[in-house]
């Protein structure tokens, strides 16, 4: 029977923490990784700022989804739509 060997868990250092940030934000870390990452954040003076910056990037990127089409492009899409509709009417599937 093989025996589980006890390996003391080394703490996460900042250099490793920055590589875990995306996994953390995407909820893709294992429970153990997550715990170690959070334990590091709790006492690190700088990594919480790094994490906060990444959160800002993601939040602001998600805010810019909608582009208003220029009136000209709007017209082009409407005319594309009408051409398609007329084609369909002439030549239905």
């Amino acid at each position: 029977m093989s025996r589980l060997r006890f390996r003391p868990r080394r703490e996460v250092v900042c250099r490793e923490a920055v590589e875990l940030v995306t996994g953390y934000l995407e909820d893709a870390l294992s429970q153990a990784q997550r715990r170690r990452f959070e334990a590091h954040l709790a006492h690190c003076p700088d990594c919480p700022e790094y994490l906060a910056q990444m959160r800002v990037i993601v939040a602001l990127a998600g805010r810019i989804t909608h582009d208003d089409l220029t009136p000209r492009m709007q017209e082009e899409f409407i005319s594309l739509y009408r051409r398609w509709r007329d084609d369909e009417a002439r030549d239905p599937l």
Partner: protein
Amino acid sequence: MPEDPDSELVSRVRAGDEGAFAELAGKYQRAMLSIARGYVPSSAVAEEVVQEAWIGVLRGIGRFERRSSFRTWLFRILVNRAISAGVRERRSVPVDDMGPVVDASCFDAGGTWRVPPDPWADQVDDQVVAAKMAARILAAIDELPIQQREVVTLHDVQGMSSGEVCAVLDISNANQRVLLHRGRSKVRQVIGSEFGRGR
């Protein structure tokens, strides 16, 4: 599967509402151009590919069965057109871009910050700064290497789930996360160099 955010617009397009079609176009045109640009040699060709994709969408929308979200279906059509028009097909993370996301010189020998990140995250509370930042973020995303740009655009800008991104780009979840991680990290660097207090 969570409800498709475009469900209502799709129904309206099917019912003959041209305004709903223009609305969908407004929502996705920019991201589509950005994605298409990654496959073809010029912006002009990318525009053609996007136009063809929209025509494909109109032709197929009556038969679209909603087994995936509309946007997944839309971007699949786009990527397929782009591949047949373009040059790129290989979709793995380039090995030359696998170093650490923060320069090793920022850490001491033990791995602790030697040059900690310049704080700027709290500036987002100022609406004016936040708007400026958002514009810079969008520009920084556009400058990312192609594969990172695709993933960040679809996931963070368009708000797709990881599953949707993987389905559109035909990549593994692990690959997707690596690209997202590297892309976001680069964007953070750009924003930090412009909005950090010390620079």
